[in-house]
């Protein structure tokens, strides 16, 4: 039986997943994810790389004309349908451990 691979559910990973799950249909680029998760620059990309490796995330280049926009295309990330389910389950499991702080509770859960 093949076991579903799960990334390490560190607190930064949980914060990134929480930021992405806030609006799963919205695509965000690295700096936006970092700002939403409250994480410093540089912390987010290794987490995104791991989540992409296990298939929870997908990414694509922004479709713009760099000359018209005056900047290069950004890389946008979004949770996959499977990734959404797995992320919710993993977060719920992580939160179910004792002593969870209020800011790490699942979305919509009352204190």
């Amino acid at each position, binding site marked *: 039986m093949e076991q579903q691979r799960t990334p390490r559910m560190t607190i930064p990973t949980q914060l990134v997943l929480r930021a992405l799950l806030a609006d799963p249909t919205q695509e965000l680029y*690295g700096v936006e994810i970092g700002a939403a998760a409250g994480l410093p620059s540089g*912390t987010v990309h290794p987490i995104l790389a791991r989540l992409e490796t296990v298939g929870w995330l997908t990414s694509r280049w922004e479709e713009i004309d760099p000359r018209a926009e005056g*900047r290069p295309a950004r890389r946008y990330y979004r949770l996959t349908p499977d990734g959404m389910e797995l992320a919710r389950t993993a977060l719920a499991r992580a939160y179910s451990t004792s002593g969870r702080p209020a800011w790490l509770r699942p979305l919509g859960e009352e204190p």
Partner: protein
Amino acid sequence: MTAWLGSRGTGQAGRPTWWAAWAVRSASLPLPSEHRWRYRQEFLAELYGMTTSQQLHHATGVLSRVWTLRVALAEPARLMAKEDAMAKSWRCRVRLHRWQRLRNPEGGWYRECLECGKQDDTGSRGGPNTFGSP
């Protein structure tokens, strides 16, 4: 003069400064070659629209964590295997499995751990891996 400075990337109008662009380009160098171009472009694109101080903060952060990114990109299989091992209960990690005795379709006995699913057919006739064999 202003236009010339802007074209050299001095942070005017949300464009990256030359040193921030240099820093994030340098940050991509230790990455595996198949990922280098992608992250160089990604880091560079993220600098656009930032103030000079934000660029400094961002470039410093990217540079300081580049080794973590390299590990995440180069050795995901090793990290996942480690995670799988850590997910096992302590009993299974020290080989104190909670065996359950089961019978296969051929009538032989084998045992399976209730916690990690490990199967063992040592000493049994027709183990779990002999399904369908003659």
